[in-house]
C-alpha cells in the first residue's frame, strides 16, 4: 500500500488520503475501491474518514443477504445470480464471508472458487472477508463494506454469510432482502416452525432442486411459513414475514431467473413502510456497533493511560483480558477488576458498573481529545 505506508501525520493527513481514495474509487478505480475495503475491514482511522465521506452517497443499492447452512449451495447460488444479473447487464458486487479460526485467527476464504468465472468481468467485484471472531454469520465490517460498494454505484450487493446454523440472523439487520438457502431433506415441518433463521427470510430457496425430495421440502416449508393471519399482518410492528418459497438448482442455473425476479419484487415492495422500518433497524445496528467500538476504545485508552503510569510502558492493544493476563500491565484497575471477577470476589455487573464509573470520570481526559467521543454517527 504505497499511499497508506506514507508517514501518517495526524488527522488532516488521514482525511486527505481518505478523500483521495474515495474520489478515485468513485471515479471507477478498482484498486482504490479494493484498498478502501481493506481499510474498512481493518478498521483503520482512514476507514472512518472514508465512510463518513461515502455515507451520504450510499443508500441506493439493494443489499441482498444470502444465508443458510454450510453446503446448501450459497456460493454456487450467488455465482448463478451473478450470471443472471450480468445477462441483464447489471453490475454486481459480492461480499463473501467465511469463518476465521478461533485458534489461530487464520482463515480459508473459498467462496471465490465458485464465482471465478466472472473475475475478469469489470461489472463484477467479489471480495472475500474473514469473520475475524465476529459471531452472527458476518464480519463486523460487512455492513460497512456493503455501504462502500453502494456508494461507488453498485446497484445490487450480494452478501454471502458464513454457513449458518439456526440462529445467525444478523444478516437480516444488514440486508434489504434476506434469502435463506436450504438443501432438500434438511428437516421437517418442525424445523420450519422453530424460531430463528427462517423467521428473518424474505425469500426461502430450496437449492439442489434436482435432488429427490426438493419439492417436498419446499412444500413443507411453504405450508408452515406462509401461515400469517390477516389479523397478525394488520397489527403491523411484529407481523412475521410471509416469505416466498422457491426451488433452484444453482449448479445448472435452473430457477435462478425466478429467484432474481423475486429479489427484484421484494425490492419494490420494500420501498413501503416495512422497508423503511428495516432501514431504521439497520441504522440502529450501525450506531450501536460504533457505540460499542467507541466504548472499547475508551476502555483501552484508559488501560493505556494506566500502563504508562506503571513501570512497564508496553501497551497491549488487546483489551481487558490482556491487561489481566500473563502478568503484563498488572496494576491497571481494569485488569484488577477482571481478576476479581475471575476469582469470584466481584460479580460481572459490579465490575461493569465500576468500569463505566471510571469512564465517566475520564470523560474530560486525554481519551476525548479531538472530540472523538462526541461525534454522532
Amino acid at each position, binding site marked *: *500500500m*504505497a499511499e*497508506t*505506508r506514507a508517514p*501518517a501525520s495526524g488527522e488532516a493527513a488521514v482525511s486527505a488520503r481518505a478523500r483521495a481514495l474515495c474520489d478515485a474509487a468513485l471515479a471507477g478505480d*478498482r*484498486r482504490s475501491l*479494493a*484498498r478502501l*475495503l*481493506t481499510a474498512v475491514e*481493518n*478498521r*483503520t482511522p*482512514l476507514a472512518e474518514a472514508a465512510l463518513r465521506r461515502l455515507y451520504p452517497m450510499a443508500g441506493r443499492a439493494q443489499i441482498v443477504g444470502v444465508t443458510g447452512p454450510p453446503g446448501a449451495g450459497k456460493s454456487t447460488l450467488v455465482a448463478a445470480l451473478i450470471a443472471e444479473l450480468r445477462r441483464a447487464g447489471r453490475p454486481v458486487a459480492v461480499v463473501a464471508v467465511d469463518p*476465521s*479460526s*478461533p*485458534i*489461530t*485467527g*487464520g*482463515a*480459508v*476464504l*473459498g467462496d*471465490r*472458487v*465458485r464465482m*471465478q468465472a466472472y*473475475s*475478469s468481468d469489470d461489472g463484477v*467485484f*467479489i*471480495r*472475500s472477508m*474473514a469473520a*475475524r*471472531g*465476529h*459471531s452472527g454469520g458476518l464480519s*463486523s465490517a460487512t455492513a460497512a463494506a456493503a455501504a462502500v460498494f453502494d456508494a461507488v454505484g453498485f446497484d445490487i450487493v450480494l452478501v454471502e454469510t458464513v454457513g449458518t446454523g439456526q440462529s445467525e440472523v444478523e444478516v437480516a439487520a444488514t440486508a434489504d432482502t434476506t434469502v435463506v438457502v436450504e438443501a432438500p431433506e434438511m428437516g421437517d415441518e418442525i424445523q420450519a416452525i422453530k424460531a430463528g433463521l427462517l423467521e428473518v427470510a424474505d425469500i426461502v430457496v430450496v437449492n439442489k432442486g434436482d435432488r429427490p425430495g426438493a419439492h417436498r421440502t419446499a412444500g413443507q416449508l411453504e405450508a408452515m411459513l406462509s401461515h400469517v393471519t390477516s389479523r397478525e399482518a394488520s397489527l403491523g410492528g411484529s407481523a412475521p414475514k410471509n416469505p416466498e418459497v422457491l426451488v433452484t438448482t444453482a449448479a445448472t442455473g435452473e430457477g435462478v431467473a425466478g429467484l432474481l425476479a423475486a429479489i427484484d419484487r421484494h425490492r419494490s415492495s420494500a420501498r413501503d413502510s416495512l422497508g423503511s422500518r428495516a432501514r431504521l433497524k439497520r441504522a440502529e445496528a450501525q450506531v450501536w*456497533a460504533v457505540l*460499542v*467500538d467507541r466504548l*472499547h*476504545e475508551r476502555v483501552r485508552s484508559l488501560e493505556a493511560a494506566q500502563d504508562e503510569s506503571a513501570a512497564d510502558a508496553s501497551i*497491549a*492493544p*488487546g*483489551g*481487558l*483480558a*490482556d491487561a*489481566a*493476563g*500473563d502478568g503484563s500491565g498488572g496494576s491497571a484497575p481494569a485488569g484488577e477488576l477482571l481478576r476479581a471477577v475471575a476469582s469470584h470476589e466481584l460479580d*460481572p455487573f459490579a465490575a461493569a458498573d465500576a468500569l463505566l464509573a471510571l469512564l465517566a470520570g475520564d470523560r474530560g481526559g486525554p481519551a476525548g481529545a479531538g472530540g472523538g467521543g462526541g461525534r454522532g454517527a
Partner: protein
Amino acid sequence: MPGQEPSRCCGAAIIRRMTERPIKVLIAKPGLDGHDRGAKVLARGLRDEGFEVVYTGLRQTPEMVATAALQEDVDVVGLSILSGAHMTLVPRICALLREKGMDDVLVAAGGIIPDVDVPALKESGVAAVFGPGTTIHEVAEFLRANARPRD
C-alpha cells in the same frame, strides 16, 4: 476485539492475534494442470499459521489471478504450477500485477519448477520459489518476513 462481548472471547492470546490484522494471501492455480492437493494443503497450513487465505480454484488465466489479487487486495500471491508452463504464466501474472499498480504485492511460486528456471522467474518479479519438500512453516516465515507492511 471490537464489537464482540469479552465473555465470548477464548483468551487474551486469541484476541491479540485477531487484532494483529492477518496477512492476506491469494493461492492460485494458473494454467491447465488439475493437481491442487498442494495448493489446498498450503492454504490450510497457512490458515493454521494465522493467515487469511483466498483460494481461487483450478484453471485460472493470468488475468483472473491478477483481478482476484486486486479485488481481494492481498499482500501475497502464491502460484502453484505443476504443468511446466511456469515460464509463460508466472512472468505474465507478474506483469499484469505491475500493470494494475500492485508492484508492492509479494509473488511466490511453488510446484514442480526446475532450478535452472528460478533465476529467470526471480528476474520477472517472483520473490521466492518453493519446491517439493518445503515445510509450511518455512513458507509462513518467509511471507511474514517479506510481505508488505499492513497499516
